[in-house]
């Protein structure tokens, strides 16, 4: 078995607040690892709104979610954070005296002296329609992502959605499919203009079908799909299908962190406002995942929370030492890192 990676701090969540925590912990002399369920850094900023402008980052009049994530990564880089992507945090054991171990769904375990939960809206995963028959078909004939396009060769495919993912896959899969129907609730698409034009041309040429409608149900047996049931303007209809791909975007949920024994308020973790520590000493929660009186779900609030968290975290990581507060302009630690 590979040695268990350990770290002074483990940050769960590589969104803007998780990334800034690397910087703040680094300034306090604490090295960090960062884990995220997503395949890259940036969290919601990158997954939900990479191109949407953000106007309330101090001193930056306007920046896109994607650009903000890039800058935060650059700001954290001197502290050389180790990232674990595609890792869903599952369990937390241990305590601040003996150290913590966070277990991940993949089997990975990371040991850390302090744990910082910066999980934002939680596990970001594809949205799934509320169809009671969905579980019987999911991952057999109904999919929310495409891992192996070859799987759909010669099949009758229904693609549901009107965004870039729906259009990109409809365009890519149509040539190899027995038939492909794009199902969307309106004539307008919020996808790249070039993709919309391509799709319309393919519909025109008979290379794919387009149906106006919203999904209502799935028909079939033993996970094998026969038809997708849809409705539009009060009329219900069926589209014969072997496979259905659905693209309704992404949404977050707190997930297994809710079972870490931390005091919760609904899906949020309660913290004190002096150090943003949870009910479990040595476990901190910052950013959108935490709550306290007056909490605002703003990126800038998360930055503030990260700074105060780091001051307390370093006292656990290096209990015997004297910890002096330093401004970044004169910080010896930062200047040494930047020189490298």
């Amino acid at each position: 078995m590979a040695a268990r990676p350990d770290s002074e701090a483990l940050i769960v969540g590589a969104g803007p607040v998780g990334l800034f925590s690397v910087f703040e912990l680094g300034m306090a002399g604490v090295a960090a690892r960062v884990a995220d369920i997503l395949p890259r850094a940036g969290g919601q900023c990158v997954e939900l709104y990479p191109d949407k402008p953000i106007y309330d980052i101090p001193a930056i009049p306007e920046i896109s979610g994607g650009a903000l994530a890039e800058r935060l990564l650059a700001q954290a880089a001197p502290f050389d954070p180790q990232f674990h992507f595609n890792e869903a945090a599952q369990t937390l054991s241990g305590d601040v005296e003996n150290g913590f171990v966070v277990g991940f769904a993949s089997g990975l375990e990371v040991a850390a002296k302090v744990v910082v939960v910066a999980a934002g809206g939680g596990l970001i995963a594809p949205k799934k329609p509320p169809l009671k028959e969905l579980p019987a078909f999911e991952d057999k004939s109904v999919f929310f992502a495409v891992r192996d396009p070859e799987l759909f060769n010669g099949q009758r495919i229904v693609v549901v959605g009107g965004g870039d993912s729906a259009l990109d896959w409809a365009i890519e899969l149509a040539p190899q499919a027995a038939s492909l129907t794009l199902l969307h609730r309106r004539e307008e698409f919020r996808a790249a203009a070039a993709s919309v034009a391509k799709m319309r041309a393919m519909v025109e040429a008979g290379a794919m079908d387009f149906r106006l409608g919203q999904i209502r149900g799935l028909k079939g047996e033993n996970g094998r799909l026969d038809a997708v049931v849809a409705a539009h303007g009060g009329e219900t209809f069926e589209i014969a299908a072997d496979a259905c791909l659905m693209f309704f975007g992404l949404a977050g949920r707190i997930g297994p962190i809710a079972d870490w024994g931390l005091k919760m308020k609904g899906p949020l973790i309660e913290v004190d406002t002096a150090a943003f520590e949870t009910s479990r000493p040595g476990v901190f929660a910052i950013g959108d995942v935490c709550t306290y009186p007056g909490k605002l779900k703003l990126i800038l609030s998360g930055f503030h929370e990260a700074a105060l968290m780091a001051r307390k975290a370093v006292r656990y990581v290096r209990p015997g030492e004297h910890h002096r507060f330093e401004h970044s302009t004169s910080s010896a630690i930062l200047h040494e890192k930047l020189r490298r």
Partner: protein
Amino acid sequence: MVKIIFIDPQEVRHEVEAEEGMTVMEAAVQHMVPGIDADCGGACACATCHVYVAPEWAEKIAGILERSETEEDMLDFAFDVRENSRLSCQIKVEAAMDGLTVRVPEQQG
């Protein structure tokens, strides 16, 4: 204060007090109304605060069913979108909305 009533899929009524100028989503989140997830915190970027405006209120408040282009786009990510669908983060609470009733869909995401 303006009273907003949320009816969840189990037909349970949640009456909350909202301030003028806040959004219907904020009123729901502040009072932890189940089913209003509001993942993105009001940026019109996630469609997890979808509600159905009660028909009588659609008549009472002019323009309450008017959706911006962004909101219409985001509703592509919602399920069972109807004529009276709105994203509650895009409805600003006004004094005239006292008693506004909205239904919370079965599932946001």
